[in-house]
């Protein structure tokens, strides 16, 4: 579904992705973790073309990114992306947020889009917030709207960029519960997160990155019980301590 082959990326002189080779199968859930600045956000931002790669090949849903023939707008419609800062449209209500792309990109009739929008918002536990503006929602609620916004596009892949890092601690679990639900329905997911409980529960694989390179991959059981490198051990001891 997603395949990185020898991908490299630079920000000026800074080498942010080094020889990334990684493949994600349909219905697989992959958690990406690593210290800040390790390139994990850049990695998933490349998948829907928010960042361009400089070298190597990246094939998503059978289409190679950077090819002239690849319709990025069409591909992005198939990929949901959940941001750390939610990025809900502040001038639109929750329902308008989730129906904007279905109406304008998928060309679904408004009534139909609104029906499925209500259904998705109800699914993430916000059945009473259809007409609420983002500013009136808590962080956890905003992030759940953001997830519903992706789901309304019926995507093939969902990418999560530290979806709980901007949240107050008491709101993290409501978002993670929704994400677990999405994973259990068989969505192909790549999730950048330090929530190891989530990784244990639904991830098939954990990818550990440091300094722009993939240092270690393994099942959650292997990775948490027996990290193979010094860097992953040091990282785990830091995040598990609190």
């Amino acid at each position, binding site marked *: 579904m997603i395949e990185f082959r020898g991908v490299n990326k630079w920000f000026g002189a800074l080498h942010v992705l080094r020889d990334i080779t990684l493949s994600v199968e349909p219905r697989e859930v992959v958690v990406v973790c690593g210290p800040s600045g390790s390139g994990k956000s850049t990695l998933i931002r490349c998948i829907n073309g928010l960042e361009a790669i400089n070298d190597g090949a990246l094939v998503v849903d059978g289409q190679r990114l950077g090819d002239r023939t690849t319709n990025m707008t069409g591909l992005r419609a198939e990929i949901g992306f959940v*941001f750390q*800062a939610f*990025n809900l*449209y502040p001038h639109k209500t929750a329902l308008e947020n989730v129906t904007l792309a279905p109406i*304008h990109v998928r060309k679904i009739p408004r009534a139909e889009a609104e029906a499925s929008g209500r259904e998705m918002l109800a699914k993430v536990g916000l059945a009473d917030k259809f007409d609420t503006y983002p500013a009136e929602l808590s962080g956890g609620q905003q992030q759940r709207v953001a997830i519903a916004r992706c789901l309304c596009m019926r995507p093939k892949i969902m990418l999560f960029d530290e979806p709980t890092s901007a949240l107050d601690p008491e709101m993290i679990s409501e978002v993670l519960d929704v994400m677990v639900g999405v994973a259990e329905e068989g969505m192909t997911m790549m999730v950048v997160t330090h929530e190891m409980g989530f990784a244990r529960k639904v991830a098939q694989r954990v990818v550990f990155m440091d300094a722009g390179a993939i240092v270690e991959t393994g099942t959650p059981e292997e990775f948490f019980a027996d990290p193979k490198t010094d860097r992953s051990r040091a990282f785990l001891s830091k995040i598990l301590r609190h």
Partner: protein
Amino acid sequence: MIWFQLQSLVGSYPLALRGLGMTVALSGISLVLGTILGFALGVLRTSGSRLLSSAIGLWVDLIRGTPFLVQIFLIFFILPELGVELDAFTAGIIALTNLAACFICEIVAAGIRSVPTGQVEAALASGLSKWQRMRQVVLPQAMRVSLPPLVGQYVLLIKDSSVVSAIGLTDLTRVGWLVVQRVPNGLLVFAIVGIGYFIVCYPLILLARRLERRMSAAHGEVQL
């Protein structure tokens, strides 16, 4: 003496009405045209090619860097030399529209730049096309920031329309100038002219301030 002058002024009221009509027509037409053109330029300034953007930037600088009076003279006296026949009214509309478009272009461009990149990324990630992103996500948010200075700009435009009296258009200011030749009381005549502008401009100033307050309240700024 004053009584006699007042009577004489009352006699000039058809002229004054014509002047007011001219001022309103000039400002109104160029306000609409300038807003449309200014929005188009503002969008192109931020999302067009770099060459186009710098070309617009240069034009805006040329207009912002020269007195409006000189611009009117240039348009009124030089366009005919280039084979474009135009009357004073058309020249006035062209000059005012161009002036308004240039200032509005910068206001709109600043509004667009103020929209956080995360908003554009979210729209991008959901597959909205360039035009859809602009129309659905960026412009509505840019408008919130641009609206107060836009209204402020309309006030400047109405006031600047007085300068077209220099090429002989009988607007409110020109009427004052004509009347003062007959009724030699500049204080009275131009106080009345001033009141005419004040009635049109002051409500707009109040509106701009209200919009500003609403916007800063929405941004959670402290009001001192």
